[in-house]
């Protein structure tokens, strides 16, 4: 089992997302996250998918996606140098003065932004890799158990500009 990344270019049409997500559920492929947005060409949408699977299943996933009439192109990002980020909001409520201080400290160290704040609640925005966001959730969950609300956007990815082997390692933000 291994974490994989796929980028799909699909027709920007009604039902295409249902087709793709239905393929995953119907064939029992697990899917970790899926994001979709329109591209510079309004007739084309771009989907970023992350999943965890063995090699054989992953080959099937790619073939099955390729087979769909609505799918224009499937790109495997698993071993490609990419930039990848996920937007996440965390709302912490019921905060004491001390909690708020702690949150500001965390946000400084983690390099994340406090975007909203009132006397007893703080809203944090984090644009990080999925793993970094996982770490942040773990930390906040420990400090403020049962008082956090999390909204995750799922990852989006784009190929890095430099493609020589040396930079591949340094750019691969997926495994910080």
């Amino acid at each position: 089992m291994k974490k994989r990344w796929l980028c799909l270019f699909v027709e920007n049409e009604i039902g295409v997302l249902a087709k793709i997500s239905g393929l995953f559920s119907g064939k029992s492929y697990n899917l970790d996250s899926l994001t979709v947005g329109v591209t510079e060409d309004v007739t084309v949408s771009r989907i970023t998918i992350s999943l965890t699977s063995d090699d054989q299943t992953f080959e099937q996933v790619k073939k099955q996606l390729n087979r769909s009439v609505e799918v224009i192109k499937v790109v495997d990002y698993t071993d490609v140098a990419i930039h990848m980020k996920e937007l996440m909001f965390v709302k912490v409520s019921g905060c004491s003065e001390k909690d708020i201080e702690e949150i500001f400290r965390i946000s400084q160290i983690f390099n994340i932004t406090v975007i909203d704040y009132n006397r007893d609640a703080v809203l944090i925005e984090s644009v990080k890799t999925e793993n970094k966001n996982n770490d942040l959730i773990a930390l906040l969950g420990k400090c403020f158990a049962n008082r956090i609300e999390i909204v995750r956007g799922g990852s989006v990815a784009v190929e890095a500009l430099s493609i020589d082997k040396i930079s591949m390692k340094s750019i691969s933000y997926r495994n910080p």
Partner: protein
Amino acid sequence: MDITGAELFVKALKKERVDTIFAYPGGQAIDLFDALYGEDDLNVIMPRHEQGLVHAADGYARSTGKVGVCLVTSGPGATNLVTGIATANYDSVPLVCFTGQVPTGLIGNDAFQEVDIVGITRSICKHAVTVRKREDLAEIIKKAFYIARTGKPGVVVVDLPKDIQREYGSDEYPTNIEIRGYKPNNSVHIGQIKKAMELLNHAQRPVFLIGGGVNIAHANMEMLKLAEITGVPVITTIMGKGAIPTTHDLYVGNIGIHGSYAANTAISKCDVLFSIGTRFNDRITGKLDQFAQDAVIIHVDIDAASISRNITVDVPIVADAKMAISKLVEKAKPLDIKAWVEQIGEWKKQYPITMRKEGMTPEKIIRSINQVFDSAIITTDVGQNQLWATQFLELNERKQMLTSGGLGTMGYGFPAAIGAKIGNPKTDVVVISGDGGMQMNIQEMATAIVYELPITICILNNGYLGNVRQWQEMFFDKRYSSTCMRYRKSCIANCNVPTECCPEYTPDFIKLAESYGAKGIRVTDEKEIIMALETAKNNRKVPTVIEFIIDREENVMPIVPPGNALNDMILESEGN
């Protein structure tokens, strides 16, 4: 000139050279039917149930090689197609199914007879689409036919809202189409062909394993050539049966859970398995890790997703079977494998598939069909009747079998025969069905009558859902749970054996046939088999139902029990 969507629909069918459509009307399709009214160039067939309709279109498509076209109304009309869509798509049959839909403005309102048929069929067809704008209609229909018939053929659903059927717009129909996400493969990788032939030429114990892909691609001539030049024995799946004539010296038999001992053993012992157009379905592989365990596996398939899915393949070749086999033939040469061929012949002789000699066995019935019909299309239903048919039917250039292999849909055989007869009016069409499956689409008898289709319908009546009963007998301690077709309220709950005093069978198939205006013949003695078949064959006007009363607990043998390796078979019933 501006025309309505419905008129464009009719024009499109003609442009696609459709001559026959299978159609059942309703409120949301009434404009389309109006446009079809009085059309001389289109033969509109109205069956009695939409499931019968779609199986008929399927049988028409399989037997003619053309695209089968269905037209039904929204809601229940559309949902009645579902089983038939899955059946056809699973066996790569090209169909285009038009469904009426409520007007675009009402979609999503839970309007009368609104269902999301595109959503329902998405996972069981090749492509499904709702037409949302009148100006898209022509292109969508063009694409539908293109997608259905190219690549690995399949079913396309086109959902047509009523307002679009009525709306005026351009009468143009495109001649060409480009779909950026759909590029059917139309070449062969020559390097892989060379590699495959290299392996084959050095093999000591090679076999061909041929699936339905060869029949679909109409590559039978090429396949025969390839087999004859190389001298390599040919094994088929159920869907591949008939790829080369079944009486040919090089033909070994079917592989699979009811395959022949020789075929299953040869697969288990071969050193090169050259497979073409099969997806290594679980019904043919048996225990996976022992499947062809000594073999290097070559796999030709048009669908990349079928390669290395169930079985890891050493040499994959993604290509159309006909194209690939033609290339293989160019490089083919005779192999020196006399000992292996003789060994397989030995196995064939040692353990032929055969049934007991006394009584009216399914073997005798099917061999009589072989004898009486020199050229025919034979459809089967699903169950023991189908399995016996795949074991004993002889197929060749003049005899084709249509069967629901992938989905295994009871109720397929009879309506498929109707479609086959409509597509091939001069060819004899024979149905081999069980008593259970026959009742799943019996209403189509009316269709066969009104369109004057003289089909020979052989019902093998064992008074059981025999295939399931056999499993209950062999693997569930004879607990005949819900499989007896002669059960009545008065029966005991834990019955495990048929007796002389079982309640009478209902319906009386003979009276039922006669009530429709068909001919009915009941056969209880083996001496009457040939006579009955001859009578049916000579009946040129109406269908003939022949009800063969067969042994109630007849089993399909041999069988690979669940979980066993392919060559670990039970060869004979305990009773024998």
